[in-house]
């Protein structure tokens, strides 16, 4: 699949943003200063919103994006939109109430948290639902998205969080405990992906054409000599070696670096704000991971074009 920048930005940033919102909503202790609360909330919400905005760059008609809220009963993309807006509105209220009232916000917070996780889940389901892309069509996809959202979100809020409540060491340990399993899920995802090929689902040139009964099937000529929307969008190819290196890079930057930073924070008892560096590293790693998520995925359409 074509790794479109807008979609990579969308999934990674909104994942981190909603991860952070989920944590804040669930009551992760923030620094006890209204400005800190506001800034943290803005950072989390901003990431989520930025992701959503990025996703509209991918649309042919962003001005009609509002229409995407209508099909929540059947469409994961629609659900994602509805949930995202609900989560963001809830989060906004939650933040405002927290800053300017003394209403109890825990209830809203939990709801916001649930909505945020549901949003991440829906984002993942946009891809996981597609039987056309066996790499994606797995429960591990939402698991990875949720894991990454929570881990990256955690690094963000933890950096801005109130250390005294939990203690810097435990914060750092929690960070590690989120980052490592998230990547573990991803590694499991990759492992599955290795065997979750089109061929493994019996999606082959033979079954795509129904000509397998005659013999081995191979494309001789594409319908058109040039490219088309389908080939650009779905018949993207990336070399194996190249992919292997990028995976290593993704893990090094997105998993090891944040873990190392968290370990240093714990070991050297550094300010948790240093976790921000871990957040940045993880995001960078996730961009690579997400690029691969698309670039490595084979769509069944490629059976008609390769």
């Amino acid at each position, binding site marked *: 699949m074509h790794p479109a920048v807008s979609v990579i930005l969308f999934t990674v940033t909104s994942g981190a943003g909603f991860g952070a919102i989920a944590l804040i909503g669930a009551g992760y202790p923030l620094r006890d200063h209204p400005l800190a609360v506001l800034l943290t909330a803005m950072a989390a919400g901003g990431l989520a919103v930025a992701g959503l905005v990025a996703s509209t760059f991918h649309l042919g008609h962003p001005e009609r994006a509002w229409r995407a809220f209508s099909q929540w009963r059947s469409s994961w993309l629609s659900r994602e939109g509805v949930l995202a807006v609900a989560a963001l509105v809830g989060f906004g209220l939650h933040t405002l109430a927290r800053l300017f009232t003394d209403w109890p916000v825990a209830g809203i917070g939990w709801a916001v948290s649930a909505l945020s996780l549901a949003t991440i889940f829906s984002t993942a389901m946009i891809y996981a639902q597609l039987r056309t892309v066996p790499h994606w069509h797995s429960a591990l996809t939402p698991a990875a998205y949720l894991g990454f959202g929570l881990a990256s979100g955690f690094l963000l809020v933890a950096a801005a969080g109130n250390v005294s409540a939990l203690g810097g060491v435990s914060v750092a340990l929690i960070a590690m405990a989120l980052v490592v399993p998230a990547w573990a899920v991803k590694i499991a995802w990759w492992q599955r992906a290795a065997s979750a090929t089109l061929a493994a689902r019996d999606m082959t040139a033979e079954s795509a054409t129904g000509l397998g009964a005659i013999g081995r099937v191979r494309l001789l000529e594409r319908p*058109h*000599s040039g490219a088309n929307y389908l080939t650009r969008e779905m018949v993207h190819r990336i070399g194996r070696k190249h992919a292997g290196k990028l995976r290593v890079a993704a893990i090094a930057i997105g998993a090891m670096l944040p873990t190392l930073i968290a370990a240093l924070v714990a070991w050297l008892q550094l300010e948790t704000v240093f976790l921000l560096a871990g957040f940045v590293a993880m995001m960078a790693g996730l961009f690579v991971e997400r690029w691969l998520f698309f670039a490595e995925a084979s769509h069944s359409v490629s059976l008609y074009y390769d």
Partner: protein
Amino acid sequence: MAAGLRGSGDRPVETSPHVSDEVRRTTCYMCACRCGINVHLRDGKVRYIEGNRDHPVNRGVLCAKGSAGIMQHYSPARLSKPLLRTGERGSGQFREIEWEEALALAADWLGEVRRRDPKKLAFFTGRDQSQSLTSWWAQQYGTPNYAAHGGFCSVNMAAAGIYTFGGAFWEFGAVDWELTRLFLIFGVAEDHDSNPIKLGLSRLKERGVRTIAVNPVRTGYSAVADEWVAITPGTDGLFVLAIVHELIKAGQVDVDYLLRYTNAAWLVIDDQGAADHGLFARDGDGRPLVLDRTSGKVVAAGEAGVRPHLKGRAVLADGRGAVPVFELLARQYLDPGNSPEATASVTGVSAEQTRRIAAEIARAAFAEEVVIDQPWTDLNGERHDRMIGRPVSFHAMRGISAHSNGFQTCRALHLLQILIGSIDTPGGFRFEPPYPRPIAIQPRPHRKASEPGRPLSGPHLGFPEGPHDLLLEADGATPVRIDKAFSWDAPLAAHGLMHMVIANAHTRDPYGIDVLFLYMANMAWNSSMNTAGVMKMLADKDANGDYLIGKIIYSDAYDSEMVAYADLVLPDTTYLERHDCISLLDRPIGEPDSMADAIRWPVVTPDRDVRAFQSVLLDLGHRLALPGMTAEDGGPRYRDYADYIVRHERRPGIGPLAGWRGANGEKTGRGEPNPDQLSRYIEHGGFFEKAVPAEARYYRHANRAWQEWAVEHGLQERVVDNVFQLYLEPLRKFQLAAEGRIEPSPPPSHRARIARCFTPLPTWYPPFEGGADAGGEYPFHAITQRPAAMYHSWGSQNAWLRQIHGHSPLFVPSAICEAAGLKDDDWAWLTSAHGRIRVQVRRSEAVNAKTMWTWNAIGKRGGAWALAPDAPEVRRGFLLNHIISELLPAKGDGMRWSNSDPITGQAAWFDLRVRIEKAAAPDAVVLPQFAPRQSAVPPAPATVAYGGEWTS
């Protein structure tokens, strides 16, 4: 929302939208198939083009090219004004001029040549459909140098057929799709009859009839055929003769048919050393003789009560011996050298497959004979109460004819058809009116204008019956024509040799040319061999700095590669903007059961300053005061081409169109001009069709009802005997000349090859290029195929079609790829004796193991066709033509032979031999690349979104 249905969720869908304001029915022109089309017009623009269901050719269907007519018609490559060259030839630099200036200039150049030496005008036309006009014009002008494109196209097919049985595959006949029981198709990718062939193949499938495709490549028609014969290029003759061998051995021939309709029983003089050895024994009236079985006497063929023998030795009145054709034939083909075993290694077809196909042919022909209960009378007056058919049919085209042994190969195929009795019998191959037209009623070639400024005494092209009909200067050797047609180089060049004109004019062999006048032929590119060489020749200058080819006038509708080499460009209309005439005098569209012709008419008006070339030609004719083109009052005889179509008479009562003749349109074929004729055509969908009476639908070579009907309808002037020529005496006459026994005789240089190739019975000899080199330096064959969705060079300007074929890979058999270390998309050098090109490779397995192929004419020169200079056609499309030479590799005999069939001069495109090596191509472009030339038209738009205006 009028009658619209409502959809799920109450969604409005306009299901009955307005389609068009008007439908105008005319004839398609994206190829020579000439299908009927319904052009839907909306707001004066073309909304949609579909096939005309009533039309005899396409019955409603339409191919990809026809369906892309909108993009062709609105192409940005359309020329819009006459152009006068300002830069060097080839540069593409022009200035726009007015028509008056253009015509005056052309008339000036042409007039001067006509006064001085008319042969210094070479007027050649491409695949136009106005040959009856253009040839007549050239005849009136008085130059011997006229032909259309047939010489590089498929003259072998046409000539072999006409000489053998008075028809030909090409577009002169068709398969009996309704009755045939076995169909063999040789060397066809698309053909001129492309929609009828597809309709026919589909009909065969419906009827459960087997199709066998003989083709080195298994795409298209060969892909759907039930069986594939993966023949090695250039060896079909051998394969066919092996089948003939099997059939004769098994006695599976239609003896009755041979006796009645062929020269199988004619006696051939056997008198070694005599000047008539090998000619037919004839009586005092010139009638051929046969040996009567009853009396044992030699009598004239066709005499009442004669029962001719097919074998044995007759003694002629003068005491010399003579043998029936059939005996010679049987002996020749029974030779073990023709057996399936002996031929297998050359043809690449196993002995088993050849033998089985022979058996299938025999079975279908004789065990499944079809009978129509239709009485008919033959030319001897004998009444037959039924029509008996041998339901095996054949079709063949350029795959067998575009070789230097193509004439004989086509003849071999016709021999096979005739032996089993399947020409114009039910289930076989059928003539399409006006065919059959045997040699007896075909013209001989004409050369002579009595003096400068006078017309030729007859048509340029024709069918020589022997050396005496050649067009040679007084020395008996020098060709009269610039293309050397009807010379010793190509004696039976019935369509001329357009591919040699530029090369010969350039070397002034036999002489130079002052004005080269071309119409609708992209000679600077895909229709020439040695493309780079030809471009150079067109632009070469002599010591004085004058162009070697004096002046070039060219008519094209689009900015093709050739345009850049013209001094004067006469921009033509497109096919939707002009009158055209698809005439029975020219290349007709008849179907076996009907005579038919058609017109094109301006269904939209030109939005540019362009003129229909035919009208321009008539205008020039008048300016030059050519006979027949000036009225009594000194004004033009014809207002324009439309007027000519209606009023011109070739012979009294016979004009370009056969339908609705006579003052009231009540006559067909013959009749005085009808001023209303074109309106009648338009009312009737742009075509005219008249059914052939049931009694006249088969056996037309010998069918009295047909002949009378044909005469009545002006298709021929008299009843004519059409005896199929298994043994072709004219060829024997050339051999006798080569043996020095009759005059004129060829120069010594030509004798051996004439003796070898001009055998009166069909034969096979290896194609010239690489013939002796099998497995040597150039071990492989390289050929082209026409893509169904592209028409030569002119499809590439089409925004839709060029997406389908924007570049051309070379398809190479997997085994060759492996040996050369080639993978898909690798680059490779393809080298022939003439040069090399760098191309991109694609592996294929469905191809003869020694053969590689590509789509024809996809490569383009940068700057042409309103395409971007970096278009894929330029960077990744190529022409095989760059490595096909118009001359054969030097043999050390001091001669450079034309790369053509030695009999007809047919260009031997498919003889090409190559080797292949992996190439580096960091720039990923094909080589050679040519300096892009300036475009003669404004830049094309970036985006096309046709049709939006009607729905938004």
